[in-house]
């Protein structure tokens, strides 16, 4: 999948390029608004990651121009301007999501993937990771053939991890998507919730599926050699 990154700060751009490439994306870059706009107009990208403060043409103007030209490419705004106005303005003009600097790279990845999913892949009827099975419609969860009882929030948390299976999701993203807590809370609340979920999912004797990624968050996957 091909994404366009528009960012004027060279160091930030280089790391975004590196990180996204390693996550399997084909990455084009632009250093200023006008070049970014013409690239976005002529080439077909799956998504655009765009800094709001750009030389020449800023992100707001860029997205407005792009939407007027009829391009519906999903756009993720990156902004250091942590003010509610800027967010609203960005989303009203047709940006699809925003992320405030400084952000965790895993969070950027998660949001980017969410954007891509929104426009392409349908969520599956039944999630399966190793011997874990989850049916969102009947809210039935099984591990190694044994039924597991989860509270509603535990179920939502598991479903969120399953939707992002194999991706690292940050604590703040979990708090936002599962509990609708759109801010960083001070404590290890998410750690406690994960711990309780783990007790039920990764019962002793079974290979663990929920892993902690230090400094980043959590990932649900079957790891080689852990069986």
């Amino acid at each position: 999948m091909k994404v366009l990154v528009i960012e004027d700060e060279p160091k930030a751009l280089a790391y975004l390029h590196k990180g996204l490439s390693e996550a399997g994306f084909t990455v084009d870059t632009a250093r200023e608004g006008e070049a970014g706009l013409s690239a976005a107009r002529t080439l077909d990208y799956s998504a655009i990651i765009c800094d709001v403060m750009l030389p020449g043409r800023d992100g707001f103007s860029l997205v407005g121009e792009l939407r007027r030209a009829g391009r519906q490419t999903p756009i993720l705004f990156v902004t250091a301007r942590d003010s509610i106005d800027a967010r609203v303005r960005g989303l009203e003009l047709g940006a699809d999501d925003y992320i405030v600097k400084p952000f965790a790279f895993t969070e950027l990845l998660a949001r980017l993937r969410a954007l891509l999913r929104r426009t392409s892949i349908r969520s599956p009827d039944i999630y399966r990771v190793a011997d874990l099975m989850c049916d969102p419609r009947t809210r039935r969860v099984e591990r190694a053939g044994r039924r597991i009882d989860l509270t509603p929030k535990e179920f939502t948390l598991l479903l969120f991890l399953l939707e992002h299976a194999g991706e690292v999701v940050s604590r703040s993203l979990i708090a936002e998507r599962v509990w609708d807590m759109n801010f960083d809370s001070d404590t290890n609340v998410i750690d406690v919730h994960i711990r309780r979920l783990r007790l039920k999912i990764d019962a002793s004797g079974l290979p663990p599926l929920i892993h902690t990624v230090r400094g980043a968050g959590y990932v649900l996957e079957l790891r080689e050699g852990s069986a």
Partner: protein
Amino acid sequence: MRGWSLATRLTVWYTATSFCLVAGATWIQYRTLARDLAAEDDQLLLETLAAARNGLLPAGARASPLGPIVRELDAACTGSVQGSPPRLLPPPDCRATPADVPAFRTWYSPSGRVWRIVSARVPEAAPRWLEVVLDRETDASVLRRFREQIGAVLAVALLLAAILGHGLARRGLAPLTALADRVARLDARSLGQRLGTAAAPAEIAALVRSFDALLERLEAAFAALTQFSGDLAHEFRTPVHILRQQAEVILARTRTAEEYQDVLSSMLEELDRLRRMVDDTLFLARAEDPRSSISTVPLRAEAELRGVAEYLDALAAERDVKLDTEASADLVLSADRMLLRRALVNLLTNAIRHTPPAGRITLSARGDGDATIVEVRDTGAGIPTESQARVFDRYAKVPGEARSSADGTGLGLAIVRGIMRLHGGTAALTSEPGCGTRVLLRFPTANGNAT
């Protein structure tokens, strides 16, 4: 008078008042003089009339060159005066003169002279009249001179009053000017100074007191700000120090990939903490900016409280603390949803942290007149009385309680207060050491209905 200086106003008032007083006094003097002169003239006329009646003065006679003239009138009311052209004298008038009582009248000659006339009938003879006429020119000239002098005196008085008034105003306002000078010399470094009411006149003392009170508040705010930037730098220094040391030590020699991974992950955690500190500091700066505004929506209190409790119940359960919510189903709360949640999460994590195992935390909401009160009550250790006033301050520390990096940014309660400020509400805390703490958030009711 708007825009006039105080000195000008005082001068004008003083001058006007002094001038009116002098002018009034002079006018009264003038009136008295005029009345006295008229009374003397009338007395002279009466005496002359009496003398003429008794035959002491012949008709047409004149006691002195400018004295009164006696005139004898016949039945046809005509008469003449020797030596004077009759047309310069007042015309005789016999109509309203009663029998014996002398009657006075005044006549203005065409040339502007004033004549005073007294007339009486003389009963013993055939109907005839005696008239005494007096030219009042002497009196008129006396009064004229008086008026001229008054004019000059008043002009001088006006000038003197203006000069004196201006001087007095300047002098009277000197304490004010001095005060302005001292205030003008105040700056951020001299906020500790007080103007003091000792030397100030009573009228200015009130102003000086208010100003000193303002200085007091400014000094406190300034000190708080200085303290805050100091605290801020200190709080930031710790994670920066850790990061630096980690990087330096790990780079000192070659390590295994695992060691690098370990240190980088640890640094990432520390960086995350720094990022949260920056976010919280920025949030506070915005919350305390009086120009910031938020839009509130009516929220169902019970659902909001339950949502927050659901988020934190696992944390509470892990510490063996019971977390309950209490709110009637139809209670509505006007708030920004995300800010409300943030405030409640901050308060509850704080309460969970300070409540010992087997404790209990109650999150409740109730209506209270024109506001909704949200209360967090715990059975924790409580807060010493002397620390209670400062708990909502940034980086407030409870004495004897160390804060570890796990406790967050130290801005949790300050953010709660900031959020309540944005809502136009208040946050208050009462605590009894050993029994527990209650925090009351007061959300004013907005003029709107539940959605």
